[in-house]
């Protein structure tokens, strides 16, 4: 359980450090959408410097920010799950549901992070670079958590059966 405590501490610290970012992102989204900020910001997407901030660029920036918010929420869910592990409630319904929820969010996140970036590269940067970056990793992580949820469901049934064998 020492490892669990270390992991919980790391996740809690990450959550604390990410909390201000939530506020910044929530303030930045309306700023990007409604304020003409093409002269003030020096933004790079996929290594390509944005010169003009038009509607598709704004949408890309907003989707990126939303995906980061989802990632932060996943960190929060993971922290809560670890809290249940610390209380020895490993097979609780909360754990099962939230592992699946985390998986779904990570998969969604990988798509809303990856697809707009590729589209932007195709239409604006005019060169597409295929790299094994962060998004396939997120997709794999998401699928892993969904599988983990299923495995936990099977394990819970086996535990119940074992407990009810007299």
């Amino acid at each position, binding site marked *: 359980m020492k490892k669990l405590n270390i992991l919980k501490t790391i996740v809690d610290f990450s959550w604390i450090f990410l909390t201000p970012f939530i506020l910044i992102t929530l303030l930045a989204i309306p700023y990007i959408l409604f304020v003409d900020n093409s002269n003030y910001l020096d933004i790079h997407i996929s290594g390509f410097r944005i010169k003009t901030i038009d509607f598709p660029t704004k949408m890309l920036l907003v989707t990126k920010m939303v995906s980061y918010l989802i990632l932060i929420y996943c960190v929060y869910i993971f922290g809560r799950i670890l809290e249940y592990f610390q209380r020895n409630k490993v097979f609780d319904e909360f754990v099962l549901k939230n592992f699946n929820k985390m998986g779904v969010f990570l998969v969604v996140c990988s798509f809303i992070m990856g697809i707009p970036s590729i589209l932007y590269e195709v239409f604006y940067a005019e060169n597409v670079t295929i790299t094994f970056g962060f998004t396939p990793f997120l997709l794999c992580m998401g699928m892993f958590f969904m599988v983990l949820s299923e495995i936990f469901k099977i394990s819970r049934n086996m535990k*119940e*059966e074992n407990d*009810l*064998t*007299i």
Partner: protein
Amino acid sequence: MPIIVNLDIMLATRKMRSKDLAEKIGITTANLSILKSGKAKAIRFSTLEAICEALDCQPSDILEFSPEV
């Protein structure tokens, strides 16, 4: 479940309390209660053997199959 546990009847006919049977066969009263209420998913041969020995009966006296309608 189509398997019915007739432990209640066997205990009543032998005028034995659940607590005494649990003590005799070496399981907790909570587990015996699970068995009596039909919530148990499985029963070990060793437990069945101990119950049969304590109640002086056959496994068929305790367990009964009744197909679900």
